[in-house]
């Protein structure tokens, strides 16, 4: 059988092409894998970094001088860090470039023998964004803190929200010395079974609710007590879930002695009970607070801190595990896409609340000042969920209506709170904490 040379040549050519296809086809994926391995190494080196920088505007370093020791603090800073201050062995004033007007507005009762170290912490930016913060404080060598908050141009003509009926000032010490300074969660403790008290609650009356709840329900008290007594929750620690409005420099952080920038009128000195009792919690960085955090985000694992949280752990449960709170403010709803079905928010919020109750943490649901959704449905849903489980509501919306532009920053988007509203919101949240603590006989 004879074959022409041309036929042989064609066959060999096809063969060569076939080999070529096989090798290029199969080697392509290997090359891709090598590239992605190199990219992975680079990614490991440049992992998520923004969390702490966004939460703090002052630099931090380990505490290295005496007089501000936090050894007896029931819930010290998680990392044992304090704002950067130069060591001051004597009670000399420390002033760091004051750029905004600061003053000591009120001096709380302190022991006559105590020496005060006036301190001014200067903002790194102007106080028009959540990243900036300005405080002044007098930190005693040991004991109380006397402070004032710059008013950031808040109109003097507005009704003073700090005036209430006169109340006798409390003794400046924790009223419950038997309360544990710290607590450790009980491993494998049975979960609490959430009780649906009002299955048909619709939250329709949300606008008329008081800013501070008038009473704390037995259901709510049972959750707190179960959490503390059966699950080992820290009865003296509260936490926060939310977006940038819940960063410690925006929400409640000023009441920590180590920040110390609050002012209390004589009629409000009773709030020192709550300030003393929950020391350490106010300025704690929550793992369930992040820029852009939504109700859905708090439930997902990708929003949890990869360096602090366990694999597969949501930001919500990560915060519960690490800080072991007994109370938690839920400040959600602002990060919302207009046009989305609000039923989605209801589902997620319900799940958050349910999981917290199961874990022995008493949720405090907060209404928001903005109306990004257009019909205030998110606030109504928030209250409906609270009523469903008989939980306390911090109706900040009601207070915000008394503020200029509803407490919102018109120069941004009428969604974010104006900086002037931050301390007012914190003040009312403190009153909510006091109310809960009072009704629970914590102090």
């Amino acid at each position, binding site marked *: *059988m004879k*074959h022409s040379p041309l*036929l*042989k040549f064609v*066959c*060999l050519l*096809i*063969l060569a092409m*076939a*080999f070529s*296809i*096989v090798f290029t*086809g*199969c080697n392509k*994926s290997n090359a*891709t*894998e090598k*590239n*992605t391995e190199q*990219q*992975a190494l*680079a*990614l*490991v080196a*440049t*992992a*998520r*970094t*923004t*969390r702490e920088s*966004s939460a703090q505007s002052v630099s931090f370093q380990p505490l290295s001088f005496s007089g501000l020791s936090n050894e007896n603090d029931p819930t010290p800073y998680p990392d044992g860090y304090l704002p950067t201050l130069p060591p001051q062995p004597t009670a000399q004033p420390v002033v760091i470039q004051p750029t905004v007007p600061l003053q000591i507005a009120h001096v709380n009762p302190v022991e006559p023998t105590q020496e005060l170290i006036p301190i001014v912490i200067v903002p790194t930016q102007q106080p028009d964004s959540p990243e900036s913060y300005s405080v002044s404080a007098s930190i005693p060598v040991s004991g109380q803190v006397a402070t004032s908050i710059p008013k950031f141009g808040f109109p003097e003509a507005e009704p003073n929200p700090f005036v209430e009926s006169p109340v006798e000032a409390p003794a400046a010490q924790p009223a419950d010395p038997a309360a544990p300074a710290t607590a450790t969660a009980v491993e494998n403790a049975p979960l609490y079974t959430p009780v649906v008290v009002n299955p048909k609650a619709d939250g329709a009356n949300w606008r008329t609710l008081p800013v501070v709840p008038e009473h704390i329900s037995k259901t709510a008290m049972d959750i707190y007590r179960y959490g503390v007594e059966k699950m080992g929750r820290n009865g003296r620690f509260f936490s926060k879930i939310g*977006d*940038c409005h819940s960063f410690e420099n925006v929400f409640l952080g000023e009441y920590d002695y180590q920040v110390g920038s609050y002012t209390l009128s004589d009629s409000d000195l009773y709030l020192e009970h709550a300030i003393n009792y929950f020391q350490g919690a106010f300025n704690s960085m929550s793992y369930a607070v*992040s*820029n*852009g*955090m*939504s109700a*859905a*985000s708090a*439930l*997902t694992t*990708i*929003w949890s801190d*990869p360096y602090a949280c366990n*694999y597969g752990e949501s930001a919500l449960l990560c915060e519960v595990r690490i800080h072991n709170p007994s109370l938690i403010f839920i400040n959600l709803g602002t*990060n*919302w*896409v207009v046009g*989305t079905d609000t039923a*989605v928010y209801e589902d*997620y919020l319900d799940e958050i609340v349910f999981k917290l109750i199961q874990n022995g943490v008493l949720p405090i649901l907060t209404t928001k000042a903005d109306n990004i959704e257009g019909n205030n449905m998110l606030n109504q849903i928030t209250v409906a969920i609270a009523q469903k489980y008989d939980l306390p509501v911090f109706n900040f919306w009601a207070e915000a209506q008394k503020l200029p532009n509803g407490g919102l920053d018109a120069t941004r988007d009428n969604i974010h709170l104006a900086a002037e509203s931050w301390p007012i919101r914190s003040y009312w949240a403190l009153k909510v904490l006091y109310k809960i603590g009072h009704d629970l006989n914590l102090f």
Partner: protein
Amino acid sequence: MKLSKIFFFFMLILLLVTGCKSGDNASDAQIKPVESFYNTIVSQQRDQIGTIACASWEKDAYREVDAFMGVKSEMKDFSCTVQNSTADAAEVVCKGKIAASYGNEITDFPIENRIHKVVKENGEWRLCGF
């Protein structure tokens, strides 16, 4: 006779080529729902989830997408490969991150620790968790 051998060898090579190409197609099909999932997150098209997630994981998939609805996000250095596979299931791992911006701040959400479970459901590959 010699030509017959060459022809036989040629057919064998063709068979190999076909097998190799068919393997790539299967791999692509298994990776596709994972890539679509992350593209859905950054494009905020939550209604696409119905064609990406398996039935039992659909609710979770919606949550994952909703979690990024309040921020602007994009995929960075994103690529996926099949780690293990059978006829009806596969594990897909990816490199890269979701870069979410909020105001002037960008937060990275790395995804390389995830092992994406992909299953064949009604003849189509669907993402079924990670």
